[in-house]
């Protein structure tokens, strides 16, 4: 690990992330009357991992198997022309699709809101959900679009010059949310 990352401040450690996801799972159950007709769709890559974790908790608490999937938003982004074409993530929809369901989009960090806007467009092309909600592990503010999260793991006041990085066991070997100052990078 680089020095910069060592100096960076971990705002959430493994147990904090664990508790935040547990609370989000409970809130989803509460707000959707026992996760009735809920579909969890994560935004790759870490949002998809988080969606699976939340589904695991819902199964553990209530014994319900909530359909989980992933929806890649790369082709729908509004900043595609600002960088070279990037690799695509995986879209995996549950076999019954999203029509008439309550879709809970799951992402790791909510920032400008542009990724979520892209996700709403992508969702439009795969079906017509009854309602769409948003869950995020970290809300760091600085919205550029009228979008808000329904379920938030942690509200994290940041400055625009900072960077928020989420590490998850499945993809990165450890659980942590790290705040990196611009000049540390």
């Amino acid at each position, binding site marked *: 690990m680089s020095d910069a990352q060592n100096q960076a401040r971990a705002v959430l450690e493994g147990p904090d992330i664990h508790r935040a996801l547990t609370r989000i799972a409970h809130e989803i159950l509460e707000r959707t009357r026992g996760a009735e007709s809920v579909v969890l769709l994560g935004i790759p890559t870490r949002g998809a991992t988080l969606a699976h974790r939340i589904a695991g908790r819902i199964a553990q608490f209530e014994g319900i198997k909530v359909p989980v999937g992933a929806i*890649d938003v790369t082709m*729908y982004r509004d900043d595609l022309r600002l960088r*070279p*074409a990037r*690799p695509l993530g995986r879209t995996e929809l549950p076999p019954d699709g999203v029509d008439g369901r309550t879709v809970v989009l799951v992402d790791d960090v909510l920032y400008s809101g542009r990724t979520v806007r892209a996700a709403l467009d992508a969702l439009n092309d795969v079906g017509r959900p009854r309602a769409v909600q948003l869950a995020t592990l970290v809300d760091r503010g600085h919205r550029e679009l009228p979008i808000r999260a329904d379920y938030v793991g942690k509200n994290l006041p940041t400055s625009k010059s900072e960077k928020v990085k989420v590490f998850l066991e499945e993809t990165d070997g450890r659980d942590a949310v790290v705040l990196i100052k611009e000049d540390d990078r």
Partner: protein
Amino acid sequence: MKRHLISTGDLTRDDALLILDTAEELARVSQRSIKKLPTLRGRTVVNLFFEDSTRTRISFEAAAKRLSADVINFSAKGSSVSKGESLKDTALTLEAMGADAVVIRHSASGAPHRLATWVRGSVVNAGDGTHEHPTQALLDAFSIRRRLGRLEGLKVAVVGDVLHSRVARSNVLLLHTLGAEVTLVAPPTLLPVAVETWPCQISYDLDAVLPKSDVVMMLRVQLERMNAAYFPSAREYSRRYGLDRDRFARLHDDAIVMHPGPMNRGMEISAEVADSPRSTIVEQVANGVTVRMAVLYLLLGGSEPAIGGAE
């Protein structure tokens, strides 16, 4: 930086894998009810076809339209202007129309390369003379990987009219990059000069190569390009280099049979083999759209192309 797809030799292993992985994700889009993506909205793709080719043109057209690009079909057939002049004039016209990408099919080897020096957009080679046909090779590699799960270490036999085949050259270069071992099988008269410099093996004996091949790619005998006697008769060719039922039986159980189309049934491939479940011929057509979407996305989707060779 301006980049093009003119030869599979320009693709690094990472480039090639990025195209195949992107195509893999895009294949899922073809399965849903709304097959369109907004990614190339406002971009213009010109299909410039100096040679007849229904399947390749339609495939590129479908790929560009599924990505929401504007498509202009420019059929230059019947042009009375001599080739060099006409190509440059056409290039200037395309410049004026603001083409972001030009997909070109031309009977002269090297035409896409020339075009690339005249236009601002990316050039995609859709077949030039007997030189290359990179998107065909990419869709072949994609079809093999989907069927057999990998490319590394596979033994691929490319059989038939290598001399007139742009598909053969593109495939040898790409499959070599991706770690497959290619053997060209053809009568000596149908092998190009300097074929020994290609990164592949050469054999004149199909029956010896078949049992150890994982993939057998049959090439079309391009009678329309033949102005000399390359083999004694069609029957003799078919007997020595055609894939019929007996030869098919000698392949191992997991081996697959490919053909870039259009086929001469009964000549290089028998109808029975072409229609067998181990033939990927129909898949190859479907995969063509997906792979061409991946190429167009990676060339045009961002601020600059993510793949291809520089001019």
